[in-house]
């Protein structure tokens, strides 16, 4: 078991664990829609993890990328009549461009000033969406977002109207993003990003222009986050203003931290924890975010590796017992 989990192959190790979770989710959960929501947010958390867990960059701008992906893909479908693939590509490209711009300006500062800059961009995006109500619906949100079927070169392949069909579609995209992210982390770029997190002045002294690396991390993170945003709009057939609000940035960061920074599988667990808590607790107690706060405090204080860190050390302890 341990050998399988720690395998370094791109398609082995945690990729198998993710595959298993993706297969089980819709079977265990009461609805495929809930499962889809978890997977979409896992994608956003994974993108945040690339910045926070690997690059050491705490970005409160993730909601901006998520919201931009939701709005732009929806607007392209509603006004431009574009299909599913084109809408998603628009979200990815727009997310990458916006994130590159935000990254370019934010990384000119470090520490708290960097965080404040990402926050400022995120707020700007929110008020822009609020002001352009003719396009975005403002406070009411953007209604009647379609969920077109998958078609390539004019040939209709799959209808995604059904909740299960859409889940499979989203899960497949997540799988591709997950494998891609593992490749990124195990690349010269990923290893340099970790080096920058560890010691930026040393990274610069051995020859890396650290700003280029941070910027690329933003570009990739923004692209994936916007993709998640686009998929979310299609899931609920609606883009609420919340998608681009401060709380969205916050939630994405919280999921990443709860799941475990520096672990891609953790992002899936973090998103699952947060979405399920909301689903179960909100019907029982409207003040449930209070419990979320307690959970976050407990994890930051006692379980720095997040949920996945806890699972990992548990596996470690069990296998050590087996050997003894």
């Amino acid at each position, binding site marked *: 078991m341990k050998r399988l989990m720690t395998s370094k192959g791109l398609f082995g190790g945690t990729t198998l664990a993710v595959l298993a979770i993706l297969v089980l989710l819709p079977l265990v959960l009461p609805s495929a829609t809930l499962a889809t929501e978890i997977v979409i947010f896992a994608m956003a958390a994974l993108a945040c993890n690339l910045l926070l867990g690997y690059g050491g960059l705490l970005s409160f701008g993730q909601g901006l990328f998520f919201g931009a992906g939701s709005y732009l893909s929806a607007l392209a479908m509603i006004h431009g009549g574009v299909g599913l693939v084109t809408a998603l590509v628009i979200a990815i490209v727009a997310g990458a461009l916006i994130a590159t711009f935000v990254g370019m300006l934010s990384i000119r500062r470090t520490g708290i000033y960097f965080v404040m800059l990402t926050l400022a961009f995120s707020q700007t995006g929110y008020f822009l969406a609020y002001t352009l109500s003719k396009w975005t619906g403002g406070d009411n949100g953007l209604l009647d977002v379609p969920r077109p079927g998958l078609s390539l070169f004019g040939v209709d392949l799959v209808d995604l109207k059904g909740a299960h069909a859409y889940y499979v579609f989203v899960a497949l995209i997540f799988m591709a993003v997950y494998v891609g992210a593992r490749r990124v982390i*195990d690349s*010269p*770029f990923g*290893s340099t990003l970790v*080096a920058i997190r560890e010691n930026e002045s040393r990274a610069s002294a*051995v*020859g890396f222009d650290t700003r280029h690396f941070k910027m690329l991390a933003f570009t990739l993170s923004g692209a994936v986050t916007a993709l998640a945003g686009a998929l979310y709009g299609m899931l609920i057939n609606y883009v609420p203003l919340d998608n681009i609000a401060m709380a969205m940035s916050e939630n994405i960061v919280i999921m990443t931290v709860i799941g475990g920074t520096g672990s891609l599988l953790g992002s899936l667990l973090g998103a699952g924890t947060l979405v399920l808590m909301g689903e179960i607790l909100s019907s029982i107690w409207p003040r449930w975010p209070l419990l979320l706060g307690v959970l976050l405090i407990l994890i930051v204080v006692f379980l720095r590796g997040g949920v996945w860190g806890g699972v990992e050390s548990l596996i470690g302890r069990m296998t050590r017992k087996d050997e003894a």
Partner: protein
Amino acid sequence: MSEILLETQDLALAYGGFRAVDGVNLSVKAGTIHSVIGPNGAGKTSLFHCLTGGRKPSEGSIFFNGADITHRPAHARVGIGMARSFQVTSLFQNLSVRENLRLAAQGCDGDKALAFWRPVGAGKAHIATAERVMERLGLAAKANTAAGDLSHGQQRVLEVGMALCGEPKLLLLDEPTSGMGIDDIPIMTHLIAELGKDHTVMLIEHNMGIVMTISDTITVMSRGQILVEGKPDAVRADERVRAAYLGEAAV
């Protein structure tokens, strides 16, 4: 052997009204070990910052291999063959010794390392460089140890090794023995002498004793200026050098 690798012309660095480096003309010959020494506050470290690109000089120019590099940023000096070590150990503490060195080797590629679609394992040359440097430093047995778990002496050796991975023409070492125990200092002195055989080394040192045995040329700085320059024996015998160091000791 007489070819000049690094040269400064009237180099000055001022902090407000205080001139930490004040009109330094330094020439480092290729293939030599050149030490810059001086009492505290002589301007050694400020000079070093100018050479490595950490600070922009207020006046004057720096030439490396014939090219003007005065305004080149620090990271862009690695690719042309300059590498540095830090006075205060600066490593990737949580990463293994091997990964530290591999990253240092990867650094010479600069932006080529932005390749996010390629596996790390494909950079075989970098892995080979890391292995070779590890052998040379005598750290091969510690390959998988986190840099932060090494002894202080070993960390200092790794610090120098990081600079070596860039296969530089010029090694700039900032007080390599800083904070080292008396027992570890000969190891470092020996390593630097070894490196001097196939690299040009420029060394900043506070401790005069260490550089006497290994240097080809010694420059003594005092109050931002060059006081004396010459072979170790000549420097040792110079009255002005004694006065400068004695003056410090008297304070």
